[in-house]
């Protein structure tokens, strides 16, 4: 294959009927403001950690909301909690709170 310098995600389908949405519902129940996300990606664009490594907050929290928890805790652990994303979020979502909540729900504390 010719390397054009970019890649695309492998196509796959998320089956919401098959995914266990219990944790996702708990997260949204505790911080309903997450549903106000328009997916603009400002959080990811400004991210300090995302600037240094592959970490995409928008992607992780979107997957978590859809019940795809695999690897989400480890991904969230890359976050430095610096809080830039909260300042740039056009919907005023408490992103730092979301990071901590997702880690609490999917991790071990």
């Amino acid at each position, binding site marked *: 294959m010719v390397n054009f310098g970019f890649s695309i995600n492998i196509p796959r389908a998320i089956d919401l009927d098959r995914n266990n949405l219990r944790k996702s519902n708990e997260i949204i129940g505790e911080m309903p403001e997450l549903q106000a996300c328009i997916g603009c990606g400002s959080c990811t664009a400004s991210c300090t950690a995302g600037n240094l490594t592959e970490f995409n907050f928008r992607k992780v929290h979107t997957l978590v909301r859809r019940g795809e928890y695999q690897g989400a805790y480890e991904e969230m652990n890359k976050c430095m*909690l610096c*809080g*830039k994303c909260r300042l740039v979020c056009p919907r005023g979502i408490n992103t730092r709170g979301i990071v901590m909540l997702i880690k609490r729900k999917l991790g071990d504390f």
Partner: protein
Amino acid sequence: MTFFAKFCIPFIIGAAILFIVIACKYISWLKNLPRQDLKLIAVNIFSFKSIKAVWEVICESLLHRRIFRVNRMLGYMHMSLAFGWFLLIAVGWIETVAYLGFKWVPLQGHVFFKYFAVLNSINEHKPLFDFVMDLLLLFVLSGVGLAWFKRVRSRALGMKRTTKHVAFDRMALSALWFIFPLRLLAESCTAAIYGGGSFLTGGIGILLSKTMSTYTLEMIYEPLWWLYSIALGTFFVAMPFSRYMHIFTEIPLIFLRNYRLRPEAKEKSYDNFEVEACSRCGICIDPCQLQSQLGINEVQSVYFLRDRRYNMLQQKIANNCLMCGRCEQICPVGINLNTLRLNSRTSMRNIPNEGRYNYLRGVDRSTGSGKVGYFAGCMTLLTPNTLSAMQKIFSTAREDVWWADKDGGVCCGRPLKLSGESDSAQKMIDYNTELFRKHNISTLVTSCPICLKVFREEYRLEGIEVLHHSEYILRLMKNGKLKVKYTVGSTYTYHDPCELGRGCGIYDEPRAVIEAVGELLEPKHNRKDAFCCGSSVANTAINDSQQLTIATKVAEELDQTGAAKIVTSCPLCKKAIKRGAKTQVVDLSEIIAENIK
């Protein structure tokens, strides 16, 4: 001579339980102190520090000087109860010695001396002692009266809001309120039947003997002493489990604090002294902006310490705090409220994870090669005006600068620490320290007070001078490397960032910088009393609209000064206040860059 009567039993049991519980608590706390703390005690116990501690105990535990600074009436209330009661005990002791000479008298003999004097038919009266004891009783009763009044109208004593108490506290409080009126009645009744007493107990005694028959007086005589003893006993039993534990705990706390013991990033045994020294006076409630501006209750330091003490602390309480430090600087007991809250958060959330932040290894995007390092900080990277102003200042002053994180760097670690993940934060601290060392800088300048605080407190940067850009700019101006023009008629007001002011004690440098370019108009709350902008990284519980409400209220006060520009020296404060202000909000560096000659 007998010094025992049946009514003394509640008092004796209460006093015994009090003594045993307190002894158990102190012994176990002291035993569990970490080794270096024990060492500090051993080194300092026979030094001048102990004498200083004794003086502080008199000033604070008895006279309550720091509460007088909050409000005089409130100070008087606390002093009359503490100092008055202490004097009643001390003078009562002298009184028994005066009557009986130096001989051993059991505890209840001192406490219920008026009763036993009659029982042992000591018929002589010493009017001086009667007078002094009555005066002291009146002193304490005036405090009790004020405490009752405070329940009805706390504002008269300078408190908008008072603490909501738990059941145990209410029980102890009620007992305390009844102790002195019951003592007054019991002693007055004794005076009514057997004579004696001075203007207070004697006076009421005469009144009683005139209105009641001797038979009635003799009927209520014993029950009154019983009630007095029960009130004392109840209070003593409740004391070590209620807020009144502070009465004794503040004393060892003052000694230990003078021996340089401090709470740390992780919970330790010393914290018990601080937690139980909280009297739940509630002075911390009024300065809390979460209360006054958002109406959030139950999260303030008094409730946090209460929950922590009774092991019922929840994350949502521990996390809901701006850590602005307004309560800490007013706390009359001088408890390190922020540190305690932080180590609670650490206990709840810290999970050491070896593999975390491995991606930091080898990252170095710094540029330049100067001896002066500039660490913008995450937030400054979001306020490019500050960054370009600093760039202009550096080039005007011909300073050779090493830019640590202009093209992306690693967070200083403080936000992570503030959320309780201190072991992970250490990885960032180690990374940044190594980076600074590698580039061999001698001065480190930062525009972000959040970074500044962690650089100064947690980083081991011996040989590297850490400066906030306000200090650095002032130094450049003093050295003549930076010349600015003063514009007559230009007005500025200044917002003290929490982390810079209360956090690092930097108040004067930014003001001196502003006064070099124009007139400074102070807002109503400034310096130690300055408001928090509301966007503090320490709080992960409040939402956006709540942050905006705080910012608007703070900006309102700054707008009212009538200044043409609001100046601050924290990128986060700048962003927050901007949302609520009508006036232009700028960083300190911007007004300097604008006015370079």
